[in-house]
């Protein structure tokens, strides 16, 4: 398409009557041709004259009010906020900065607390393991393994105890217990009622370390078991067994 082809389209373009494809092509040309843009402006002046063919009509007074109302609103929203905006920007920055600082500080404290707790937990775990190892190395000490049944599937525990009755239970992958409940260790002597041990609640990962003293009557226990009981503990098992050991010789 040559320049003259575009020029022929301009009068109709001034009427906005070109088909979409033609208008698109011409508009692309207009972007790069000042001569044609000037000619379009002149043709628009011609087509604008056609507006007077329509009879003038008085719009309702409300239109004027709506327009001026919107203008006043625009003016007030631009003028007032301009001042307050500059203040607001800085005060907002100030407020935001203060909030951010507080949030950061709280986050730092929480982070430190979490680290401290983790550190303490690691220390306690390490201390318990050391203590467990020391107990295991005590002459006459025994280690018994407990395994989870269907209720305690995947859970395992090792119970070390010596002849003096010092016992340490290290358990892992224990299921969470319901609120108000706790695990309780039991020492089972053949032909005697189970001897209750202490209660304990595992951490969120299901790990637990329990230090206990085995009563003299339970030193001959052949089986060790763990049940879920009321958190305060019971003297005789009421809940189901989650873990138990094989019968030791």
């Amino acid at each position, binding site marked *: 398409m040559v320049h003259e082809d575009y020029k*022929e389209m301009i*009068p*109709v373009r*001034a*009427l*906005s*009557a*070109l*088909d*979409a494809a033609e208008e698109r092509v011409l508009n692309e040309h207009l972007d790069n041709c000042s001569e044609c843009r*000037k000619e379009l*402006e*002149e*043709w*628009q*002046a*011609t*087509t*604008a*004259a*056609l*507006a*007077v*063919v*329509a*009879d*003038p*009509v*008085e*719009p*309702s007074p*409300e*239109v*004027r009010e*709506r*327009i*001026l109302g*919107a*203008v*006043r609103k*625009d*003016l007030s929203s*631009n003028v007032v906020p301009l001042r307050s905006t500059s203040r607001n920007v800085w005060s907002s920055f100030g407020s935001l900065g203060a909030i951010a600082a507080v949030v950061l500080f709280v986050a730092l404290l929480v982070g430190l607390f979490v680290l401290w707790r983790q550190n303490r937990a690691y220390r306690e775990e390490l201390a318990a393991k050391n203590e467990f190892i020391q107990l295991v190395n005590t002459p006459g000490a025994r280690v018994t393994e407990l395994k989870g049944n269907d209720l305690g599937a995947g859970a395992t525990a090792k119970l070390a105890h010596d002849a003096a009755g010092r016992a340490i239970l290290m358990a892992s992958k224990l299921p969470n217990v319901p609120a108000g409940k706790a695990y309780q260790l039991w020492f089972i002597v053949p032909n005697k009622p189970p001897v209750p041990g202490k209660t304990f609640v595992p951490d969120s990962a299901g790990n637990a370390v329990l230090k206990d003293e085995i009563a003299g009557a339970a030193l001959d226990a052949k089986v060790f078991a763990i049940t879920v009981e009321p958190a305060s503990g019971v003297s005789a098992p009421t809940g189901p067994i989650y873990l138990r050991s094989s019968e030791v010789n």
Partner: protein
Amino acid sequence: MLFCGQSVFAWRSYISRLQPRPAQEDDVALLKAIAARNEAALAQLYDRYRAILFGLLMRILNNREEAEDVLQEVFLQVWRKATDFDENRGRPFTWLVTLARSRGIDRLRTLAARERVAETSAREVSEDISDAATDAFKSEQRGLVTKALSQLPDEQKRPLMLAYFDGLTQSEIAARLGAPLGTVKTRMRTGLISLRELLAGQGESFGF
């Protein structure tokens, strides 16, 4: 040859006289004031052109509520875009009419309400001409444009009216009139060139 330099000069002379020079200068000053966010200037411009532009929008939309809504949009656009007006590229009247018609046609196309009869709308609105309207744009000017149009063959005038007031494209006009597209294109272009020459020829008789 309708496109000769002398004719173009005469046409420009007509267009410049379509508005009295003081009015044009006033309008430019008003638009500059509006660009400087002068509310009173917008009110003055509105009072000057509301009837002409609303009449145009009523003719296009044939619906008072829609036309008033578009008129509001047009003047709010003037308020926001007055800084875009360049007096070296056209006159305020052309700018305002182009804005109003463009928005009116857009609304019309949106409403897909092209089936109304232009002659009916003209009758409906003609009873509501105000003093302000006649002051703002004298009936003599309307008469001269109408006279120029009346000198066009109907086969040229009708496509122009369908395009201007009904917002139809050339293809739509061809379908409406049952004429080949090429024929419609030729008639529209010839009609527009003739109109420009006729207006230029009558321009000398304007008393602005």
